[in-house]
């Protein structure tokens, strides 16, 4: 049964420091080699090698990573296995999986690596009873149940999308099967219908990040120049001494992360190294990471030192983050105030500004209220959009297929060619919810079009 190569993220979801994408099957190494370019040297068996993940054509390298190749049968599944470990950001991990799928791998079913291990004789001590459980666990029905539990309204929305896709397919098929009957099916109408499904799916995908935040926490980065009191704020928010605080600039060389619950909403607060000029290579590395983290985070808490006059660097930082969801924090108001809202001038626009003293705990409650207001209120009512990353990837693939079908119709290819593109949606839908059967399409034709002799 295992002619194909499977791929999946094999570390638990959420933003761990590291994440692993695993490939297993005949083409694991071939796909791995296309995905990953070693910095130097070549891929050898069972030896991690450092290099970069090649993004899609335009993007250039996606991330730095280690690749380890396990030649079958000396591997977990007894097949060729390639493990790519890179930064734990779900965005990166999903992209690696997506690239792998594009190169010919298939999304693994839940538990499929273990299943292969069993069938390939690796786990032959396991008794039949245990296998039974295993098979049950990997059954798609189970997956579908958990899918339902995750959000009934989500499956309803996907159900609607599915129904619309059936409609589009059946209108094209009706036109092909019954050329002598005037069914009033126009190409323009078809294009419009496909466009509408695409928009529905894009809406759903847009809700993904919001939905994920509710489960995994909203990531906020505390940013600012060195020694403006970021770590003090970090600790003050968490109410414990977590970051190492010293009066010397540059103490936080890497970054720290903690969970913070504000009025029932979960935040991942990241305290990162100060942004500014620094000669120290370790610090520079920390800053580089910081910039990337900030770009992936849902929002930025930008901290300024209110006890010193605003500098050009401060203004530059503000300009850099202005277009993100940010809150400006003017810290150290317990000291003599040299810098207030006015100093930032027009650059601040209508960005919320909170003046606090992290050290003395002044106005922290005001800040928390602001944080909640800005990042949580906007998400309310979107609880139905909790998507798994797997589902999101499938939805994105569906959009790709629909776009291809739409361009076939736009560019004047005959209906059966557009129809052929559209048929690729069927197995994708099957992986998301129930597969579309021909019978269903034909039933739809006869319920919507009056055809037949």
């Amino acid at each position, binding site marked *: *049964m295992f002619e*194909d190569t499977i791929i999946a993220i094999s570390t638990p979801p959420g933003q761990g420091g590291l994440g692993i994408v695993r490939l297993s099957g005949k083409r694991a190494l*071939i796909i791995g080699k296309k995905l990953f370019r070693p910095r130097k040297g070549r891929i050898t068996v069972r030896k991690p090698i450092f290099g970069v993940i090649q993004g899609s054509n335009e993007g250039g390298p996606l991330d730095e990573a280690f690749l380890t190749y396990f030649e*079958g049968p000396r591997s977990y599944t007894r097949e060729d296995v390639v493990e790519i470990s890179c930064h734990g950001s779900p965005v990166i991990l999903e992209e690696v999986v997506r690239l792998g799928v594009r190169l010919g791998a298939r999304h693994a079913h839940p538990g499929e690596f273990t299943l292969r291990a*069993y*069938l390939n004789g690796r786990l032959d001590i396991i008794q039949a009873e245990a296998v*039974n459980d295993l098979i049950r666990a990997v059954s798609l029905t189970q997956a579908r149940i958990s899918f339902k539990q995750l959000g009934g309204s989500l499956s309803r929305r996907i159900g609607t999308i599915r129904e619309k896709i059936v409609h589009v397919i059946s209108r094209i098929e009706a036109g092909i099967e019954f050329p002598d009957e005037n069914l009033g099916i126009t190409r323009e109408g078809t294009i419009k219908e496909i466009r509408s499904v695409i928009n529905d799916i894009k809406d759903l995908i847009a809700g993904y990040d919001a939905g994920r935040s509710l489960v995994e926490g909203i990531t906020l980065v505390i940013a600012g120049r060195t020694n403006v009191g970021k770590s003090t704020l970090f600790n003050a928010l968490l109410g414990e001494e977590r970051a190492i605080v010293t009066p010397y600039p540059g103490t936080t060389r890497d970054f720290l992360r903690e969970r913070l619950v504000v009025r029932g909403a979960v935040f991942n607060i990241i305290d990162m190294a100060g942004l500014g000029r620094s000669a120290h290579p370790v610090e520079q590395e920390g800053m580089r990471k910081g910039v990337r983290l900030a770009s992936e985070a849902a929002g930025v808490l930008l901290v300024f030192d209110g006890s010193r006059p605003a500098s050009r660097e401060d203004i530059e930082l503000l300009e850099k983050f202005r277009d993100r969801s940010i809150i400006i924090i003017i810290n150290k108001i317990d000291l003599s105030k040299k810098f207030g809202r006015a100093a930032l001038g027009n650059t601040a626009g209508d960005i919320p500004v909170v003046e606090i003293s992290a050290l003395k705990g002044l106005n922290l409650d005001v800040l928390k209220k602001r944080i909640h207001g800005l990042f949580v209120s906007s998400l309310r009512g979107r609880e139905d959009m909790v998507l798994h990353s797997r589902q999101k990837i499938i939805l994105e693939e569906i959009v790709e297929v629909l776009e291809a079908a739409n361009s076939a119709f736009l560019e004047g290819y005959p209906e059966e060619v557009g129809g052929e593109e559209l048929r690729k949606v069927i197995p994708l839908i099957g992986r998301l919810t129930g597969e579309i059967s*021909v*019978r269903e399409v034909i039933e739809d034709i006869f319920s919507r079009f009056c055809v037949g002799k």
Partner: protein
Amino acid sequence: MRQPDYDVVIIGAGHAGCEAAAATSAMGLRTCLITINLETIAQMSCNPAIGGLAKGHLVREIDALGGLMGILADETGIQFRLLNRSRGGAVQAPRAQCDKARYRLAMRHRLEHLQGLSLYQGIVSELVIRSGKACGVRTVDGAAISSRTVIVTPGTFLNGLIHIGLHSYPAGRANEPPSNELGEDLRRLGFTILRLKTGTPMRLDGTTIDWAQFQAQPGDEAPVPFSFRTRKVVENKVLCYIGYTNARTHGVIRENLDKSPLYSGRITGIGPRYCPSIEDKVVKFSHHSRHQFFLEPEGLETNEVYVNGMSSSLPLDVQKKILETIPGLDRARIVRPAYGIEYDAVSPTELLSSLETRRIGNLYLAGQINGTSGYEEAAAQGLMAGINAALKIKKKKPFILRRDQAYIGVLIDDLITKGVEEPYRLFTSRAEYRLYLRIDNADKRLMPLGRALGLISREEYQQQEAKQKRIQAAMFFLGQRKVKDRNGDTLTLREYLKKPEIKIQNMLEYGKFSGSLSDEEMRAIESEIKYEGYLKRQRKEVSRLKRTDRMKIPKDLDLEKVPGLTKEAREKLEKYRPETIGQARRIPGLTPAALFNIGVFIEAERRRRMRGARNVPRETLAEDE
């Protein structure tokens, strides 16, 4: 043991029975074709047309396997159209109006001249079964005919019951006796019997129609024949006409719905939705202000006209009132009323892919008895049943066409793995590999197989090979010649032809191609090139699926042992008894999970048995460069 009277006995001489008989006798077997009425051999009981989407595809495939339907449709056709000319080659299909009487006579003439074939008029009352195997038939007049295999192709005759309004009478077709004893016999043997329904519209006296009220629909300027083997040019001899119902018509129908056996609940059989009666259309699509119908001549030597689109089981007086509301038909005389008919069918889940029944060996079923509708669907099954009955006698492996090989494969696989709830009609949408299963390559796909079976002559086969050579040469030519496109890029003519607005004729002319190609050959080349990317992808998918789909499900598989199977899945598997994972995959309602569990179980069992007994060397890993 005494030599049986015949190798094959075929019950019923409709489109399935005739093809079956032609195939078995051509394969050298002594065949007896039994029919209730020798005058109505190969009768077109409903519309006077053959072909259309998917059906025209079937006829081409039947033809490539040596069947008769295509040749006879060409011989007796009176108007030819290639449908979907505005679309691509994969969804184009021929359709022809045929002269019903001449089709019937032409078939009888053919059969009478086939060596080894005997025609016999009689009504079969029962099958003779010995140790679970069919070995002959008995007729109502007491005759017994013994044989090695039996093919049953009774059409709508098994317990046929005709309805016109609230009147009904037993019949297999208007005014022809039904076959009730055989129907009862099949029930007695334990077959799962379905009650199905179909219908046919009224026939009018053409001299009483005001033709000026209707829009003429001519045949094609360059008519395309069905058969690869037809050398004569086919011609258009008649016109068809298009008309519409109106609000008054719909009013009459609504007022009289209580007299419809369907709406009053007298008909319990399930009718086909793709062939709705006019009362169905008016009820289900009440927002439509009119419905289209076609006036089609039934033949050259008759004035009878078939009203395509006006199928009904309303009483005769209501049928007359309906016509009165339509300008041009207001004075038309009905020569045969429209009627509905209910009949028995056997659930096709009783069948193996060879069309032999699981229940009784050497017994084959084909045509409407398997729940299909349509002359073409019947003919295709008849041909396959005939071939397989012959192969069985010759102790050879059954002839099975896969879904990626032929529409015939799609048809039979659908029937046996999904069963039917209403009369089954083939659609191109049912084919996964629609872009490949084309009318222009049916010969390339199937003639080699037809030749191997002995159903295609050497000469016919050589012509096919010569045609493929011409096509190859032209494709090679198009791949060599270059052209600059609008952006100044240099492309081969072959690449350029992939643009949607470009036609093959332009490319051949532009490149000054010196060879000569028929329209048919040009269509084949155009499809091959325009669909190239899709065809490649499909070939890949087929080879991937073949491996898993071919995985055999052992006949003695103990479903109780398969872990994780739901009760529902077990029941489905018991009912359909799939022979392979591929067949199981297409059983409706069987979840991927269930399939996965079975596949895993079979594989695990196999490995358990093999463990230790081997040490297979690993395949060397293919490098990417």
